């Protein structure tokens, strides 16, 4: 077992850190530290392009598609340095982390050539069209439909239906959508994975105001929206398999970046506790220690996942990681508020909050999205522990 990096890897770390510091104290100083999904969107689109030009947008991808063919250690290092530098949250996240790897793994050569370079260059933004009002935890219950029809440029898919909780839809040029392409099919059968352009008449986006007061999510309505016949990943009817492949990408290097972000938050809580005297409180001290322990356990679990420290198909943390971090983060939000005291409850005139109180509110979503804690427990019990399956309708 080895946790330290080689000299060569440390050199790479210095290169990454140097570039980030240069940009974030220079041209992009105004967007450093932004964690909100929607703030300063125009500037962050420019940031995506700056990452793309410098080749830092999708470093794990093959070079021909704008990547650096970086190995796992380099990806870990980049993710850590990105978070350490307090670089802004990525508007390109959905493309680079989810759509891109899916196209790389399941797409045709033509799709790779068409979509990947623009994705890694920060020229095209993406959003994810999975959840629907009737398909939340039960994702396979999607009702959005697509059918093939003749269009002005030949055959095309025509979509009707509604997606919800679509983050970044207002900035997206493309959406990857799971929809039903086989009439009368149910559940996981008859679904397809389509790539749909967002700028068209048949698509309407309505923001959803959430409990933080901001609108990070949207409803997306498809009313005769179209996309070319070739914009399907995998075969018609294989959408579920392709979508599950995408979900698998969510547990990856990005977890380590997320942890660095969590560490920044814990550091800020510790600073605040020292400033306002909360650090003298025995219970607060204990909770700070607990939070720190959880953070170390998460880092170790992520490393176990990434390096296959356990033999066998899936190691324990691959099942338990989501519920652990989500619950940990929600608890961290409560600690933050107890450290800040009443002054942490003061909003600005337009009902916005500083980072920690906003995190306290937003962390209530952590245990809901990407599989609620309740769904996670079902998955752990049935898939990892082998307990009898729930009856499914």
């Amino acid at each position, binding site marked *: 077992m080895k946790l330290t990096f080689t000299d060569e890897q440390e050199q790479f770390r210095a290169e990454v850190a140097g570039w980030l510091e240069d940009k974030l104290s220079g041209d992009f100083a105004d967007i450093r530290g932004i964690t909100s999904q929607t703030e300063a969107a125009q500037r962050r689109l420019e940031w995506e392009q700056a990452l793309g030009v410098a080749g830092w947008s999708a470093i794990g991808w093959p070079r021909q598609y704008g990547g650096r063919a970086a190995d*796992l250690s380099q990806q870990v290092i980049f993710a850590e340095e990105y978070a350490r530098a307090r670089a802004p949250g990525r508007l390109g996240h959905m493309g680079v982390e989810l759509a891109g790897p899916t196209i790389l793994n399941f797409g045709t050569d033509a799709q790779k050539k068409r979509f990947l370079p623009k994705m890694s260059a920060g020229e095209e933004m993406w959003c994810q069209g999975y959840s629907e009002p009737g398909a939340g935890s039960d994702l396979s219950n999607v009702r959005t439909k697509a059918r093939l029809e003749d269009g002005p440029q030949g055959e095309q898919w025509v979509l009707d239906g509604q997606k919800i909780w679509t983050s970044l839809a207002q900035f997206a040029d493309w959406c990857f959508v799971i929809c039903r392409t086989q009439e009368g099919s149910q559940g996981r059968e008859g679904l397809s994975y389509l790539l749909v352009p967002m700028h068209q008449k048949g698509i309407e986006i309505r923001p959803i105001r959430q409990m933080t007061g901001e609108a990070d999510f949207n409803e997306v309505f498809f009313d005769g929206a179209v996309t070319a016949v070739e914009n399907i990943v995998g075969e018609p009817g294989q959408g579920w398999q392709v979508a599950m*492949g995408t979900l698998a990408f969510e547990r990856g290097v990005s977890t380590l970046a997320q942890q660095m972000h969590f560490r920044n938050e814990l550091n800020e809580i510790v600073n605040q506790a020292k400033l306002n005297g909360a650090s003298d409180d025995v219970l607060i001290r204990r909770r700070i*220690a607990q939070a720190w*322990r959880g953070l170390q356990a998460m880092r170790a679990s992520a490393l176990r996942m990434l390096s296959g420290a356990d033999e066998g198909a899936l190691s324990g*943390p691959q099942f*338990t990681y989501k519920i*652990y971090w989500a619950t940990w983060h929600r608890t961290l939000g409560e600690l933050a508020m107890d450290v800040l005291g009443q002054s942490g409850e003061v909003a600005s005139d337009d009902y916005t909050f500083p980072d920690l109180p906003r995190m306290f509110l937003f962390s209530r979503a952590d245990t809901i999205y990407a599989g609620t804690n309740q769904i996670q*427990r079902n998955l752990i019990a*049935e898939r990892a522990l082998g*307990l009898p399956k729930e009856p499914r309708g």
Partner: protein
Amino acid sequence: MRKWFTVEATVIIMCWGSCVQFEFTEEQKMIRTMADEFARDHGGSERIRAAMASSLGYDMETWLSLGELGLAGLLIGADQGGQGLGPVEMALVHEALGRYLISGPMLASGVIAATFLAGLKSQELTLMQSMASGELRVALARFADGQSLFVLDAHHADCLLACIDDTAYIVYRNEAGEFPGIAVERLTMLDQTRVLSHLNMVELTPDAQKLSEGSEVTQAYQDGLAMGRLATAAEAVGAAQTCLMRTVEYAQEREQFGRKIGSFQALKHELANVMVNTEAAISAVYFAACTAAESPDALYQMAALARVQASEALTHAAGRMIQLHGGVGFTWEHDAHLYFKRARGTATLFGSNASLDEAIAASILGDAA
């Protein structure tokens, strides 16, 4: 469909390569396999219960076999007759022992005393060699006002490392089998798989031989205790995995209302929670061991991390083991109470969870309460 998902996720992780080396080396995997087999052969409810009921408090044959395998000298240098291995290998061995609640001189002698002695400038070659072979069982005790409380395995130790202020002495048993000048009161503890004693030093006799004095004694004592916490943490995650596995097995067999009780979501979610905490604790223990191996200065904080994390996971797992077994889990005959009691004993051995959390907090906040 489910199978496909499993295969795909694995492929994705594999194709990323394996450059972060948070995985066991071939040698470590061999040690783990050996320790697991050893523990399986020497574990077993009857054998553990017989050891608990004996005056010795552990199974002598198990200890001798550990010595034959070379595991007694795991942490002792190769030039002193040991294996010269580190915290990672130690954690793997103790995780295996913990699965079956196997105890014995390994923790007090092979881990704590060995770490203490390694921290002293004067290397006691003969002593270390006898410890490495398992012939000599050593216990470490620090005295304040003539007393040392809750000392692990002092009742059977062949010799005692006694720290008074910043001076360390070594005391051997005399012909009567007693430590001259030191009275040993063997305690029957709630967790009967470990034997603790109160020591009362009536006088420091000339038989006590001075080993070392100065700040290195204090440091070595802290290191010994910290290594003991790490080993205890590894044992606790081993035990927690047994609790989880045995409760899952029971939930798959036991039927009520015409179905397996494991098909009820109320049980599934409880068991899932146990797995979540257990996996986090396993991660913390491996991480702590690996970090301590690379940076010995981090041992104290890493051991605290592992110990509290593992102690809480075992407390949770063992508590759920009793509850989800229903009435049978409350009987003396079932092993659940052994794990539950081990959990209690783990939460206090070598410092309470609260005191370890306070040490962590003081380090993070850069102060001391």
